[in-house]
């Protein structure tokens, strides 16, 4: 077990370092000089200013030296200063990370509860041989998975924001009223949009897992013992169907991080995804490096935890070889 942990940790570290080098190199290969972009016409008329800023952000040094310098700063907990924003990368990311986390966590709860619910219902439909309802639900799930998130966002905005006027469609809070209820109301549409695809994907996986588990010997034994259907489902089947559910939670995180870019863009949500796209477009290297590093670390840690959790849920799985 310890050997497995160490090997797995080493591999994760390698991935994070490799990923950060990849991003670092890619940014420096992008055509377009960040300093010139930031200074605009001022830079064209004043080459001295460009030179001074280039030196200030260390962009005149060879790329490997820049990388080592960046890592050195990082070890001391400093992500550097933004080129475009008048603040440090750490300050820029802190607020936005919280906003994205709030959105992501809400979406995660909706997706897990909703997805598991849909999966259980779908499995019950199969179990009770209600084929028409089963087909309808499967078809609906696939439609919801195929809808692009920005289209879904528009549809929800048109229905709930424009036609019914129930929910606000932009931003995190109103200007005049920023109580808890107001913030929650702003959260509904973005969170639902973000949760839709992962939720319905999870629903399909839960359905398959439960249908599989119902065919297992223990399920037959449980029925043979005369246990009620509810008890068989909740105690014997659902637990055995947990492994794929947990595995998928890790994949879901990737979906959230990808999805949040478009969803934050649509709903004007001041989070990391939107910050990242804007920073890429403005060639704000330090911010892109900071945000991608955070995403790499979160993604890697989640995958690591998912791997570990297999054994907790299903003790039959052993960590033989990584």
């Amino acid at each position, binding site marked *: 077990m310890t050997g497995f942990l160490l090997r797995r940790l080493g591999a994760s570290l390698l991935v994070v370092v490799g*990923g950060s080098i990849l991003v670092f190199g890619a940014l420096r290969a992008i055509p377009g000089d960040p300093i010139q972009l930031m200074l605009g016409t001022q830079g064209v008329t004043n080459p001295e200013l460009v030179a001074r800023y280039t030196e200030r952000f260390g962009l005149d040094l060879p790329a490997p030296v820049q990388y080592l310098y960046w890592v050195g700063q990082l070890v001391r907990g400093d992500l550097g200063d933004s080129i475009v924003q008048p603040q440090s990368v750490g300050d820029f990311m802190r607020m936005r990370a919280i906003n994205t986390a709030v959105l992501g966590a809400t979406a995660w709860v909706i997706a897990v509860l909703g997805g598991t619910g849909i999966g259980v219902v779908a499995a019950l439909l199969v179990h009770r041989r209600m084929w028409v309802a089963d087909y309808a639900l499967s078809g609906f799930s696939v439609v919801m998975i*195929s809808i692009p998130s920005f289209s879904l966002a528009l549809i929800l905005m048109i229905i709930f924001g424009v036609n019914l006027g129930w929910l606000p469609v932009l931003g995190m809070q109103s200007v005049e009223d920023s109580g808890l209820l107001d913030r929650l109301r702003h959260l509904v549409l973005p969170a639902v949009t973000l949760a839709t695809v992962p939720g319905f994907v999870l629903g399909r996986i839960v359905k398959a897992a439960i249908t599989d588990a119902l065919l297992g010997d223990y399920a037959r034994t449980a029925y043979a013992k005369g246990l009620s259907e509810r008890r068989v489902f909740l105690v014997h089947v659902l637990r055995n169907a947990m492994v794929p559910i947990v595995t998928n939670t890790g994949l879901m995180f990737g979906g959230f991080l990808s999805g949040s*870019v478009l969803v934050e863009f649509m709903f004007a949500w001041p989070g990391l995804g939107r910050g990242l796209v804007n920073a890429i477009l403005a060639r704000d290297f330090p911010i892109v490096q900071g945000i991608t590093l955070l995403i790499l670390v979160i993604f890697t840690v989640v995958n690591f935890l998912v791997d570990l959790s297999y054994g907790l849920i299903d003790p039959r799985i052993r960590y033989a070889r990584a």
Partner: protein
Amino acid sequence: MRGPDPVDSALHGGNRVRLPGTGRTAALAAWVGANRWMSVLLAIAAAMMVFAIVAPWIAPGDPTEVVLSQRYLPLWSEGHAMGTDHLGRDYLSRLIVGGRLSIMAGLIPAFGAMVAGLVIGLTSGYFGGWVDSVLMRIIDVLLAFPFLLLVILMVAVLGTDIRNAMIALMIGGTPGTARTLRSLVLSIKQRPFVEAAEVSGLGGWRIIQHEIFPNVLPLAVALMTIQMSWMIVAIAGLSFLGLGVRPPDADWGTLIAEARGHIFRAPYLALIPSVLVALVSFVFFVLGDALQRTLGEERVR
């Protein structure tokens, strides 16, 4: 409970029985009869590809002609079956020509990702050793990035246009395919027919070509079909963000982005291309899903 091993079931599932003495047409008819659902899906997918090719010739008007006196004509207007947009351009023509870009730009990178995934998966899985280690570490790193973020980053590096967006999508889709195919190759390598070929002195490339490749191809095609459904959505998303198709060209993602500013006045301008993207993506998703089921693997999205 872990379900059946995908690699194992891919090997044992999908046995095809060919009756002796039947011609090609009869065999096709028999296959269609036995796989009605799949045949319908294949026909729809094929029709979409044909549509993507012939689109410029079936568009009734010029998709880029601006007529400012005819802005926001409603649906079913005289001469403009789908009305006009905020610049008075014929919306039906824009939808048809945009569909060509959307479909092509989704299908081509998925195909490219399959080819690249096959090359890497076969090389890595069959030869193993340091080549395998290096390739798999690179793939680990690429898979540590969420798909869309990796693609956006690459578009930024390559420069914003449709060709680069397609290249970026292809690179983004390759690691997953390569990883899955590699594990299939690893298990095929253990099987008697490969050992027999090795003992009879065939070279590595010939074994890959004649023994391994034919057994990997079905799963590769199924994965490609599912990726087509993602990539059609992804390219629309890139265009929506302004990172894909550039004006004056417009794909469905561009149309949605343009219509976004006018959802109060003409919500259908945003809804129609949204539904179309979802529809095309839906067909390829269901088709890929059905192909994978035939291979006995039901779990992968």
